[in-house]
């Protein structure tokens, strides 16, 4: 986790928001725009795909976002290895919308788990070509360290597989990653609701990236706002410092001045009240 500056800075760019929003799978472009507004997101993600040669309509997602001040983070989804990811990144850069790239190399069709070796290779090559590389990675602290050393502008470990909504499956690892990282940590993938976003921030993440939990929520616009609030709440909570977990209860109300005598701890509380309280 970065020091407690108020602004997240990635690749030298100060960002207005710690929420990175995906642009896929919304019910309509209008809902996407409204969700984007509600989320306050500054960084938005895209995919690169072939143009439909038979369609005459301009279906580029950018058409709906042309009027906004945003940082564009195209992903390399669809790449199976470093080579393909680099090709997609070069195509994305040629679009003239910046040199950020989310390295996403998912080789397994059912888990969409990122391939760690290819992700590291692609990150090295993209950094060498001057990209601001943000690799989506598994929640492995050592791998995140290697990606950081390779020049990643941020590391983006997944909470759980993409689109599952299973939340943070390994908070222990994610906490480690946040503690060790010298670059921003963006928890990407698998979040299900605002609670997961808050938890990610409490673990020490610098931001989160969500798409499906917003786009496929019953009310995407409301969920976008919930995510924004959860990030703020989670981050404040982290900075405020949570209390340690304890085995036994500690009364919130001070014992001094209580009307009746405290139960006897040795008696385990059972019947103590009856003895002391005198009942009949």
């Amino acid at each position, binding site marked *: 986790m970065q020091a407690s500056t108020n602004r997240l800075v990635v690749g030298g760019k100060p960002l207005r928001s710690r929420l990175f929003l995906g642009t896929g799978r919304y019910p309509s472009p209008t809902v996407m725009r409204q969700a984007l507004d509600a989320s306050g997101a500054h960084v938005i993600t895209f995919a690169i795909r072939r143009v439909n040669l038979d369609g005459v309509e*301009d279906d580029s997602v950018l058409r709906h976002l042309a009027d906004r001040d945003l940082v564009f983070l195209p992903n390399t989804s669809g790449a199976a290895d470093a080579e393909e990811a680099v090709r997609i990144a070069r195509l994305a850069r040629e679009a003239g919308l910046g040199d950020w790239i989310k390295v996403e190399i998912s080789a397994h069709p059912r888990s969409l788990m990122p391939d760690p070796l290819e992700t590291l290779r692609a990150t090295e090559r993209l950094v060498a070509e001057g990209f601001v590389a943000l690799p989506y990675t598994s929640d492995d602290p050592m791998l995140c360290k290697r990606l950081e050393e390779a020049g990643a502008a941020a590391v983006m470990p997944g909470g759980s597989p993409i689109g599952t909504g299973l939340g943070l499956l390994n908070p222990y690892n994610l906490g480690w990653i946040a503690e060790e990282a010298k670059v921003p940590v963006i928890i990407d993938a698998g979040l299900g609701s605002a609670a997961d976003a808050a938890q990610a921030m409490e673990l020490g993440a610098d931001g989160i990236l969500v798409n499906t939990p917003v786009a496929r929520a019953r009310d995407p616009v409301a969920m976008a706002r919930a995510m924004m609030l959860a990030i703020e709440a989670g981050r404040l909570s982290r900075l405020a410092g949570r209390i340690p977990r304890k085995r036994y209860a500690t009364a919130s109300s001070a014992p001094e001045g209580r009307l009746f005598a405290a139960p006897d701890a040795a008696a385990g509380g059972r019947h103590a009240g009856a003895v002391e309280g005198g009942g009949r």
Partner: protein
Amino acid sequence: MRTIHECKLYVVSGENYHPDRGLLEVMEAAIRGGADIVQLRDKASPKRELLRKARAMRELTRRLGTLFIVNDHPDIALAAEADGVHLGQDDLPVASARQMLGPDRLIGVSTHALPQAIAAERAGADYIGAGPVYPTGTKPDRPAATLSYISEAARAVRIPFFAIGGIHPGNAEDVLAAGASRLCAVSAVVGSPDPEEACRRLRGYIDRRQASRPPSPSAAARARLTVNGRAVETPAATLLELAAEYRLADRRVVAERNGEVVPRASWPDVPVREGDRIEFVHFVGGG
């Protein structure tokens, strides 16, 4: 009544080129020489004067059986019952002019590069002017688009296009050889001491070229490529022409040829050859 597809020689008025002769006299000579579509272009006159000229031109063209187009002003075109209006890149968009003129009147658009041509075609223009092919006194500030634009347009534009800009009997054959089948002239006709003869000569080149041209591009000139994973055959010679074939020339798309990104600025220069693998991609929603 003639259709735009039948028209081959377009003459645009320019009264400053013939101060000693009347508009109607010169335009009539042009039509008698073979112009089959004429345009009233007059940036100086007030509208009332323009309407008077437009009505007179309508009279003349109706009598001689040619199409009549008014430059810039849909309202004048309607009031004078012209066949259509011609728009520059900074004039009304085609869609707005179409709203005013209805489906049957012609809308032409001046274009200076292939993306503009494709955009005009997609917007519903009936024909385009393509140029200036050569530097011209009519548009002194505009750099020439050159013959390469004519070749591109010939491959990629489906609506009729008229090559325009500095065309005269001395260079018409070059323009036709580059792929034009229709010409448009201003000063070479209306500034000539004999507009009828100037048109006759231009018309002669057009008709001879037409007669000698093979009916369709030969199959040998078509390359077999893979575009976005699909096997295709194309007459396109460059990446820009290929993009235009798929109506992508003016869209925010990125191209890759055989695994290498091709910057958009080089699309006109990068050839497409037999066996090439081309990708056209764009941004879509994603996480």
